[in-house]
């Protein structure tokens, strides 16, 4: 475990950069992690996904991609367009959650 400073907030992260405590997350931190992931601006659709994931996290872990599309009503294409190249990990990191546990 290491600590990292994002937007002035000190957070605990694991070796892959995932926040260890979802409670340490806030929207400024989300924006900072998103920039690290190559997403310069979080649009209302990004926030819709992020909020839904935080509300539906189980044991601090992000829902799976299929759960996200089913829960938010976004299509798979839209989800991959919002969080290109690895949405499963990207959504989890930006939302301050752990990697999804399920395979689908």
């Amino acid at each position: 475990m290491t600590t990292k400073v994002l937007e002035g907030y000190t957070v605990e992260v694991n070796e892959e950069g995932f926040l260890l405590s979802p409670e340490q997350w806030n929207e400024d931190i989300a924006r900072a992690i998103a920039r690290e992931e190559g997403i310069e601006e979080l649009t209302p659709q990004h926030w819709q996904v992020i909020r839904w994931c935080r509300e539906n996290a189980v044991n601090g872990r992000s829902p799976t991609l299929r759960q996200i599309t089913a829960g938010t009503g976004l299509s798979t294409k839209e989800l991959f367009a919002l969080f290109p190249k690895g949405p499963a990990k990207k959504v989890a990191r930006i939302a301050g959650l752990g990697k999804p546990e399920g395979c689908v």
Partner: protein
Amino acid sequence: MLNGHENTRKMAFVCTKGTLDMAYPALVMGWAALGNGVDVTMFFAFWGLDIIRKSRQDHLELAPVGNTSMKLSMMGVPMENAGIPNALGVLPGMTALATKLMKDKMRALGVPPVSEYVQMLIDGGAKLYACKLSVDMMGLKREDFVDGLAGIVTASDFIDMTEGAQIVFI
């Protein structure tokens, strides 16, 4: 766009089997790879073509005959190592029963049917190809396959397009 990045990890799945239990491993791993930002190519050959054939993909089956891993315990009989006798497995309806059991278990876990899974992979940016030799051998045409198929290509084409990729043969 998922492709075209020099440093992106690449994986290629060669899918040669058309039974239900051999279709899902490719779909699950391909989807996991996409979710992790891996560039995914899938090549369907021989019986694997059934996974992307519109008329076949949701009718894949699992046969108990000759399948030493299928035990009576899967059918609710609490005998861990008791197999399904082949003499039973050949009875009419046994393949349908085994197939239904597996599909029910998958559905209970939130796993989508094969057609939906294939579409998720296409929508997520995976490139799906059918093997030309297999397509010709089975007398199939482009319109027999899902709309999102990237093409019907030769083995040589596949080797060319997967340079540097990690190849998984199923």
